[in-house]
């Protein structure tokens, strides 16, 4: 296990997340993809923390975790609003921002 292999693993997870973000229609599914991407970022932090030493990197992972939780809470609340309004969670329906 080298730093390079760890980083490439997280890059792979990130790209799978990007793929999901670009192809999914459902808001919840897009949120899942975003979770994957956030997770990959945490993995990069943890890898560097392991290979360079020191606790700071892990602290940042903890912070990032908490922020992700906050993001999911608000995101899901928005998804519920969307659902109540359109009866569906397909984000394509929420295109009022255009006007």
């Amino acid at each position, binding site marked *: 296990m080298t730093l390079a292999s760890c980083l490439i693993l997280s890059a792979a997870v990130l790209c799978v997340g990007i793929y999901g973000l*670009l192809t999914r229609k459902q808001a919840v599914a897009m949120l899942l993809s975003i979770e994957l991407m956030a997770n990959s970022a945490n993995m990069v932090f943890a890898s560097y923390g392991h290979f360079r030493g020191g606790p700071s990197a892990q602290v940042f992972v903890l912070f990032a975790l908490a922020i992700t939780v906050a993001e999911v809470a608000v995101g899901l609340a928005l998804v519920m609003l969307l659902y109540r309004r359109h009866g569906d969670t397909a984000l*394509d329906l929420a*295109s009022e*921002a255009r*006007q």
Partner: protein
Amino acid sequence: MSAVTLGLIATFAPLAAALLLWALVPLRHRGAPAAWVTLLGSVIALAASVKLVIDRLGGAPDVRTTIPWIEERGRAMAELGVQLDGVSVPMLVIVCLVALCVQLFSVAYMHDEPPRAFGRYFTLHALFLFSMNVVVVSPNLLQLFAGWELVGLTSYLLIGFYFAKPSAAQAAVKAFWMTKLADMGFLFGLLVLYVNTGGFEWTAVPGTAIATWVTALLFLAVVGKSAQFPLHIWLPDAMEGPTPVSALLHAATMVAAGVFLVVRADPLFAQAPATREVMLWIGASTAVFAAGLALVQKDIKKVLAFSTCSQLGYMVAALGAGQAFAGFFHLGTHAFFKALLFLAAGSVIHAVHSNSLDDMGGLRKKLPLTTAAFVIGALSLAGVPGFAGFFSKDLVLGALEGKASWVPWAMLMGSAFLTAFYMGRVVIKAFWGAESEKAAHAHEGGLAMTGPLVALALPSLGAGFLGGWLATQVRAEYHLHLGLTPIAASAMALLGIGAAIMVFGKGGQAPLVGTLEKLDAFSLVDKTWAGAYRIGLLGVSSLAGWIDRYLIDGLMNFTGWAALEGGASARKLQTGLVRDYAMLVVVGVLVLVLIGVLR
């Protein structure tokens, strides 16, 4: 208490009152309590300055204490402090006494104002007294300049006290504009002095050439502040302010600051004979010119305003003749009798609700005390022997004896006659003769009005006898001698009064008056300035306006138009679909990573 402490108390007690009123808005808006705060501040200041005089009578020495200000590399750029000597201590008493009288008078005079305006009025009065005392006690020209600008500010605010009235607002702006124009001279004079001597001291010896430059520039400021020809045009308009304000600022104290400056900076002016020559002529011409104009005014306050111009001309001429003490003495007596005249005029205006002399007449019976006060002031102003004005005017005229081939002396003699003549006119028109319609219901004001009149009438009667003491204070020579000048001056005063009784006593008009009215020299000067203003300032402004409207606004409009058009086209990019936005973010990431790869 030490002299410095007393000086600081005299200066800062009014400031404390002003700050208190400024900070405690409810107190200021209540009106009457604000007046009490200001009066208290003035009483403390007066008490401190009276104590200073008593100490000096007991032989206290001159005091000069300064603290460094703006230190740089161990050397102070300037100093702030207090200088208490034979010039500043009597001046402090004069300023504080007149201010207290005027403030007391104002309590009655401004009684009908709404409480908020009343409070504002007294706040400004307290601020003015502080500013004036800063001028008086300042130990160098820089601090004097600071106080000078402060009194200019309070003058502007008080002239524009009835700011809802367009003429008052205009007069305030005009006064500000003219005096600021002149104050540029002060500023540049200070700069020249600092560059050449490294300080702001009036005792500096920079050599004749530099001294001439500095004093000429300072004198420009004096011309503006003390309303000398041709910058005098703001003073008559300043009569738009409340009458007590005119009494305090535009007659007794503030306009005299210019004279005070020259008295202070006398060592500098002594090195510049050329400047003194100019001062002599300007002072003498202003004295005659303004006296002539005072003759034709219908507004009682305007008569007094031009009279102030004229008397300031006397002082400036005396300073120009190198007799600083004569100018200073006249400043002191003039402060009392002119404040008295203005307050008496205020009492009259309060009684008949009009400024116009035509609305007055026969007030002698209705307002006996005011009449007495006004007559005392007028006799003092005219220079009738025995009254305060006689002694100082005599000293001024004596200073001019033989100067510049007697011409300025003759001019001042002529204006002494005119002074007695126009004051006679005012007294007769306002207090004698037929009773006018408006005068029928006139009555004396309360104690707050009559008290200050009495308090100022006493020094107007007797201040002349203090000349000897004042002279010892400033170490000048002073002796009353029975020579050509006093006799001629007394004759002029009596002749003027006699002529006034002859001409106006029967309700007639002087033939001279009609001619002068046609000439209307005052409005000529006014028009010249208005023309200069129109061509200079308005011309530049309209050019700037054109550039602003077409070049700068054009650029702005073009920018706005371009942004709108660009936005309209960019709008097509916005599909409103979240996926497309995510897509764009991904493209952005791709570009960033690509940069990382290629680097």
